[in-house]
């Protein structure tokens, strides 16, 4: 197998182990390219090639993790755009943050690839799916390993286009086409802000390299002067686009049009997390001295980080509320991802005050694990019920699909934040940070936990308990091994991550001096920050009991919607934000282009050009009238001409 040889060669060279990072990055691209060009017809080979490519990357990442484990190292850079004054080159940076993220991305990607061999088995363009997925993994790894802002932007856009290709995978479906277009354009609005942010930072700091930027900011916190706040916000705009924060969140729910493995990998674990990862990567921008240009004077007191916190908090709350009244299983999970991302962004914002955003990264890692499992579980349910996605047509799947049920239950418990599972510890850290930084957002966190537990329990109770409501669910049966094995494998981290000192490992990265709170991991939260832990646990239990009271008896239809009446209608229609966008933003653009087209057609092309041509034609015809054809006029004009000449010459 040639990729094994590649790995062997890298180690033998022994020159610089971290150049292995290049192998990790390039391997998926090579696989994607070879599948697309060489073996589009051969289904099995293309699946095998791509899956093995990602798995080898995972193994290499694991070796790097063991060898370096958090120590900051740089692979030899490649000079991409060597222009004087613009040091834009592609370099790979390995440190605690990126090695951990490497593991998450390649790990989840391998499992999703294996899962997809089963899920996409009867799909026509099988190998195209795998090559696009590998392309996505390549772009994602590019973001994780990027060591300068321009390279980050480059792979930012490549991730955007891979998600466009994957969402629009079933291009015959008009809804898939529109969803992919919407996703790409919303991301592009985010990227617009991101590019401007990079330009501001580059013009003031003179360098694009993140490490150099960090040293300069540490040396001279007021380096960015009044532009610090704006630069921070603009770069955050990039994160808003990618991690679907309000108001650029509209594309994520529609992105469910793509195949479920895509939703699992991209819209649960990796891509949406890129925004949070990027915020952590350029975290030093937000701890620098805040400042606003004259034009934005009214923001002087407020720091960029607090704005980020508000947006994160609001997104979390908003998404959780909407999720309560959704019926489509993938939409519920999509909104839950939205709300969890809101939490992470809030954690980063709050972390700015305490100087340690590791809580959000920790939650990101755990969330990637159980949310990917939940999506794959949902996929297996949909696969079993013959592509039925409405939970009110399912029921009683507990007995028919035991393995999917149990893994789904574990995932739900982890998401809700019950103690032995990983979700509890990471969410607890966020609540602890919130409590310490700003109690209001602690309240938001608790409320979000309640709502999360409520809608997840609603989903589990309706879908897995009671009697089968639809005929699809009636004769559902357990999915094949290739789909359930990844579920089981993913269940392990949801439980076991809590036992690994990831929290400490991360906070050491951000505050090397700070003593990692060692001691017993399992009961750590209870004795470090009892209030946060108990509140978190209480909220989870309260949410579950509320859901049980409503949905315990497996009702035929949703008892909550008549009670909430109008509010439920609003929640089902996602508070009409899409309608607002379609109502305002799109027609505005169309109006502008209509005006421009009208100007172009009438004013410039019509008036200026045809007018001119017409004037010339009229002048020609008028002047031509002099040629009356009669000799008399000619003779007369000739004499007049002579007189004119004499006058003109002698005057």
């Amino acid at each position: 197998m040639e990729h094994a040889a590649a790995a062997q060669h890298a180690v033998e060279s022994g020159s610089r182990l971290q150049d292995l990072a290049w192998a990790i990055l390039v391997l998926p691209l090579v696989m994607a390219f070879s599948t697309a060009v060489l073996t589009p017809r051969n289904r099995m080979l293309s699946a095998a090639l791509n899956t093995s490519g990602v798995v080898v990357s995972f193994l290499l990442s694991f070796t790097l993790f063991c060898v370096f484990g958090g120590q900051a190292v740089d692979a030899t850079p490649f000079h991409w755009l060597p222009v004087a004054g613009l040091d834009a080159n592609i370099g790979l940076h390995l440190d605690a943050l990126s090695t951990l993220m490497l593991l998450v991305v390649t790990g989840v990607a391998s499992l999703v690839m294996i899962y997809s061999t089963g899920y996409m088995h009867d799909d026509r363009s099988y190998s195209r799916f795998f090559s696009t997925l590998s392309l996505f993994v390549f772009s994602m790894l590019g973001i994780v390993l990027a060591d300068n802002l321009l390279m980050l932007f480059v792979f930012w856009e490549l991730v955007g286009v891979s998600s466009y290709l994957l969402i629009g995978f079933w291009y015959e479906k008009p809804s898939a086409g529109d969803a992919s277009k919407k996703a790409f354009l919303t991301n592009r609005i985010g990227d617009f802000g991101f590019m401007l942010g990079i330009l501001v930072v580059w013009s003031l700091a003179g360098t694009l390299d993140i490490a150099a930027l960090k040293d300069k900011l540490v040396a001279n916190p007021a380096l960015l002067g009044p532009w610090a706040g704006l630069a921070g916000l603009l770069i955050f705009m990039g994160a808003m686009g990618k991690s679907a924060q309000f108001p650029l969140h509209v594309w994520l729910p529609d992105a469910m049009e793509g195949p479920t493995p895509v939703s699992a990998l991209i819209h649960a674990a990796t891509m949406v997390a890129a925004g949070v990862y990027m915020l952590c990567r350029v975290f030093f921008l937000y701890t620098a001295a805040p400042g606003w240009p004259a034009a934005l004077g009214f923001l002087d007191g407020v720091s960029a980080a607090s704005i980020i916190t508000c947006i994160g908090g609001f997104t979390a709350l908003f998404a959780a509320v909407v999720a309560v009244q959704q019926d489509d299983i993938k939409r519920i999970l999509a909104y839950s991802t939205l709300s969890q991302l809101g939490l992470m962004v809030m954690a980063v914002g709050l972390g700015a005050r305490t100087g340690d955003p590791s809580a959000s990264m920790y939650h990101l890692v755990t969330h990637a694990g159980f949310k990917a499992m939940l999506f794959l579980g949902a996929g297996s349910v949909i696969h079993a019920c013959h592509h039925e996605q409405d939970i009110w047509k399912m029921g009683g799947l507990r007995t028919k699909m035991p393995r999917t049920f149990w893994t789904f239950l574990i995932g739900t418990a982890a998401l809700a934040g019950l103690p032995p599972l990983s979700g509890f510890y990471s969410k607890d850290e966020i609540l602890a940070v919130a409590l310490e930084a700003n109690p209001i957002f602690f309240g938001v966190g608790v409320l979000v936990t309640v709502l999360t537990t409520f809608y997840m329990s609603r989903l589990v109770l309706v879908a897995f308990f009671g009697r089968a409501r639809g005929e699809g669910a009636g004769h559902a049966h357990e999915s094949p091994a290739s789909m359930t094995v990844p579920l089981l494998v993913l269940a392990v981290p949801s439980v076991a991550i809590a036992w690994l000192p990831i929290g400490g490992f991360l906070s050491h990265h951000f505050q090397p001096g700070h003593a990692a709170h060692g001691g017993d991991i399992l009961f750590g939260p209870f004795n470090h920050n009892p209030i946060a832990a108990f509140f978190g646990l209480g909220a989870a239990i309260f949410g579950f009991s509320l859901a049980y009271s409503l949905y315990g008896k497996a009702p035929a239809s949703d008892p909550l919607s008549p009670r909430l009446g109008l509010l439920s209608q609003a929640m089902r229609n996602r508070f009409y934000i899409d309608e607002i966008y379609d109502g305002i933003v799109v027609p505005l653009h169309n109006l502008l282009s209509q005006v421009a087209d009208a100007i172009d057609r009438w004013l410039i092309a019509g008036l200026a050009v045809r007018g001119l041509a017409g004037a010339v034609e009229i002048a020609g015809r008028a002047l031509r009238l002099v040629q009356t054809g009669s000799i008399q006029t000619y003779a007369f004009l000739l004499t007049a001409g002579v007189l004119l000449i004499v006058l003109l010459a002698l005057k």
Partner: protein
Amino acid sequence: MIPGLHHYLIVSALLFSLGLLGVVARRNLFVVYMGLELMLNAANLALVAFSRFHNNLNGQVMVFFIITVAAAEVAVGLALLVALYRKRQTAHVEDLTTLKL
């Protein structure tokens, strides 16, 4: 008083403008043609006057050139006008406006 050079010049200028008037104002082609000849003769008169007053005979030699050329012109011109008359039975200037604009 003996007519000086400028008298002759005035007469020739008058003759010239008369001829020009004939060409411009008259309708009949033959009369226009006569006007033309008149203008040429005005030039002859001026030449003769100049050569007389500068007693330099070149002027008068020049007159001979002009007369012979005028004669050739008349011959060809009249032949042309006759051909035109035979074709259109008219010598009126107004009828000759097919080529215009």
